[in-house]
């Protein structure tokens, strides 16, 4: 104990010698005001969810509408069978119509063949049907979703990815929310299927737990979900049809989310729901380069969507103050400005203050984030996780996670710059260039 106190004194004396320490202290309000509120919102959301789960009587409405699951397939090959199989396996007494749209079918014959192999299996399942939609002309994800939408016979439309599979209670737990006629979109936790493959996938697994699960749950409690992900979005079909389906261009999921939000003032009842029991499992990039490539697209698309497509849609008069403030804070401040301020601030500190102070401040920042993440992860594990033992392995990643977060933030700035000056949204694997060009530039 004595040695700790001694060290603390040495530290204070060392710190006191440098006026530049004010720079180190500057980071604290910066973080406090920008980031902490978002974390608090998340934590309150998780606690509120946990409390409700304990207190509320579970409601299981006798509501089993016919649903349509559209799977957008491309070069998944045999892996697409997992997706279809996990949908056939759903514990749901209503009819599940599965539409597998294979984009550019001539190029992706293995995917098409894999789907055809499943056709004889479908008859073994009651109330399930599989339609394979071979699209000869490649049109991208959006065109596959819209093709599925025009053929869908179900009341509820699931927009799913070919490399994502689902727990067998996904449909039933998601459908329960549509009993409320105001619910327009539901999503659920996305878990990383290939988590144990590499270090990169392990880190992304932790990131998905903290952002896709804790983050989305917290935001949804404020009815201000940031995004209904493209790989796993569940919508009321009549509503999506009314607003014209998905729109050309990249980041069609964020575009759809924002367009729905823009009805909030006119229809204040509209609800987004995050259902923790509707679990999906997806594959994430296995290498760091793959991860960076994916984020280059995702983060760049944010700028494209906010600055071009929805320039005039982001207003309090359209989406209400609640969503407007959230979008300014999370979407603009946190996702667009923060990456730059972090980069500029770090470079500024590295140049202006002595190297040991710089390192010291970096250690402080690291510790701050480490504890923040530790709290967030512990809350996740205690109150939210449905596979607690399995998820414990992510503890090992906690010490290096802040570094990973830092790299991701810096990369985010690169992505936004790439979009600003290089129009990166036109370089997407989600659709051919001629389709992307038809989007609002």
């Amino acid at each position, binding site marked *: 104990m004595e040695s700790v106190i001694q060290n603390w004194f040495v530290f204070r004396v060392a710190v006191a010698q440098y006026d530049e320490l004010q720079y180190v202290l500057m980071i604290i309000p910066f973080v406090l005001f920008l980031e902490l509120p978002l974390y608090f919102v998340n934590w309150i959301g998780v606690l509120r969810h946990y409390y409700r789960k304990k207190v509320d009587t579970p409601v299981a409405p006798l509501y089993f509408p016919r649903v349509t699951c559209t799977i957008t397939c491309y070069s998944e090959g045999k892996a697409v069978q997992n997706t279809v*199989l*996990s949908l056939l*396996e759903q*514990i749901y007494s209503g009819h599940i119509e599965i539409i597998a749209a294979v984009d550019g079918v001539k190029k992706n014959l293995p995917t098409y063949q894999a789907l055809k192999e499943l056709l004889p299996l479908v008859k073994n399942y009651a109330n399930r049907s599989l339609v394979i939609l071979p699209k000869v002309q490649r049109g991208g994800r959006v065109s596959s979703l819209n093709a599925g939408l025009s053929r869908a016979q179900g009341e509820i439309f699931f927009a799913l990815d070919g490399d994502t599979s*689902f*727990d*067998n*209670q996904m449909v039933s737990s998601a459908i329960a929310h549509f009993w409320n006629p105001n619910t327009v979109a539901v999503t659920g936790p996305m878990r990383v299927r290939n988590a144990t493959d590499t270090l990169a996938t392990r880190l992304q697994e932790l990131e998905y737990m903290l952002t896709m699960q804790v983050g989305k749950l917290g935001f949804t409690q404020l009815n201000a979900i940031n995004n209904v992900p493209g790989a796993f979005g569940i919508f009321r079909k009549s509503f999506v049809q009314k607003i014209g389906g998905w729109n050309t261009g990249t980041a069609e999921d964020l575009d759809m989310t924002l367009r729905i939000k823009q009805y909030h003032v006119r229809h204040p009842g509209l609800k987004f729901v995050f259902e923790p029991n509707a679990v999906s499992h997806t594959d994430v990039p296995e290498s760091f380069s793959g991860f960076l490539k994916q984020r280059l697209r995702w983060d760049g698309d944010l700028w494209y969507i906010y600055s071009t497509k929805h320039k005039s849609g982001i207003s309090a008069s359209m989406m209400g103050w609640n969503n407007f403030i959230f979008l300014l804070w999370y979407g603009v401040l946190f996702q667009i400005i923060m990456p730059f301020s972090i980069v500029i601030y770090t470079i500024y500190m590295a140049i202006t203050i002595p190297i040991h102070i710089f390192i010291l401040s970096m250690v402080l920042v690291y510790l701050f984030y480490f504890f923040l993440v530790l709290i967030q992860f512990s809350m996740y594990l205690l109150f939210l996780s449905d596979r607690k033992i399995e998820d414990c392995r992510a503890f090992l990643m906690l010490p290096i996670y802040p570094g990973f977060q830092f790299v991701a933030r810096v990369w985010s700035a690169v992505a936004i710059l790439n979009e600003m000056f290089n129009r990166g949204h036109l370089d997407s694997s989600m659709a051919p260039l001629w389709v992307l060009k038809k989007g609002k530039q």
Partner: protein
Amino acid sequence: MLIFFSPNKTDLSSSYTELFRIQHCGDFSDWEKSKTIPSAFVIDSKDAQYVNTIVNKIRRDHLVFGFLCFVTEVQPSFDDQLLDGQLPEPSILKKKINDFEDLSQSFKNSETYITPQGRLIKYLWLRPEFVIQPQKDWQHSRYYRYSLLDALSEDTVDSFVWLRKLATAKILEPMILLDRQRECSHCRSSHLSFVDTCPNCSGIDIHLKPSLHCFTCGCVDAQDKFMQTGSLICPKCNTHLRHIGSDYDRPLENYQCQSCSHAFSEGEVLVRCAMCEKSMNPDELVINEIQNWRLSDRGRVIAFRGEVFDLSSGFDQLDFISKELFVHDLDWMIVLTRRYKNISFSLFGIYFANLNELVDEIGHTRVLQVLESFAQRLRNLLRTPDLSARTAENMLWLLLPNTDKQGLAGFHKRIENSMGQLLQESDQKLIFRFCSISSDQLSDKESAELLLARLSGGLL
């Protein structure tokens, strides 16, 4: 003259009446009273039953089965295998009839044409482009039938059996494979039904029963046993089964027999014949290939020569072995002599260059006699272990074991002597050539196929 069948009295246009004499008949029995031999028949009706009845009677009549038979208006329900199509314009009709009569004259009539085979050859000879097509008929036990063959055989034989005989005799040749169907092994019907049965007790009362296999404890049971308040919980270890492939899977045994409770993944398929009501396994079914057919070159030769004969039947006294066996034995002899220098053999070939021409000159009976006496003499020359084979109608091969160069020369001399007699019998007109080789003349790389090809090449 045109025989004009029509249920109602109608008149053909004057352009026909100017060129042809017309005789009206209400139905076939009207014509049978007079049995007038026409240039062609014309049937004027839209009633398929009327048209098909008349044309079937024409094709079954021994006198007029081969005559041209037109309809005034073609309908899909008419049996087009028996008809010659729509009645053409008078001038074209005239030409068609002339062509038909030319072919009819060049056709060599003989008494063989009282048989169905003779009638078929004649029918096809008179229609050079004709293709025998099968027709689909669900009421027919074989599903496919050949109406022309039925008519010409007067329904006395099964078309498929007859076709096989005609193909073996090389009178008809197949053109295109149209279908391949499975038939009952007992009655050859293609009206079959397939039913899944229990592999244990052969009962048909089987049903799909979904079951699960828990990965945690290995429990396999019916899906209902796992269902608890809307989720799958293993009844043994209480694990919550969430995702197929990682928590649980489906065992392959999907079916259960209601009679014996046996669980299995795939039922056994049993075939039942709707005609003879016998049951069998699918692999017992007989495969029948449905083809369309036309008259072969050989069939045409028969049509204008008038007789069916096989020149090579003159050699029947020589016990030929098959070409494959001959080649095999020759190969073996080559290998043998290569290894053991004290063993030798010789190969002797006889080629008849002008058998077909000789038939035209002295008649095929004489040729057969000549060949038969040659074969008789040749047989006397051969020893018991000598082998003979025929690789073509006019090419004979003899394999003479234990015969060296000298032995071969002796054999050559003897066979030439007997050939001299053959020449006398055939008025010195038979052209034949010999080729021979003994084992010591063989090169190291020789094989039987090559040797035969090389020697016969030298003869042509």
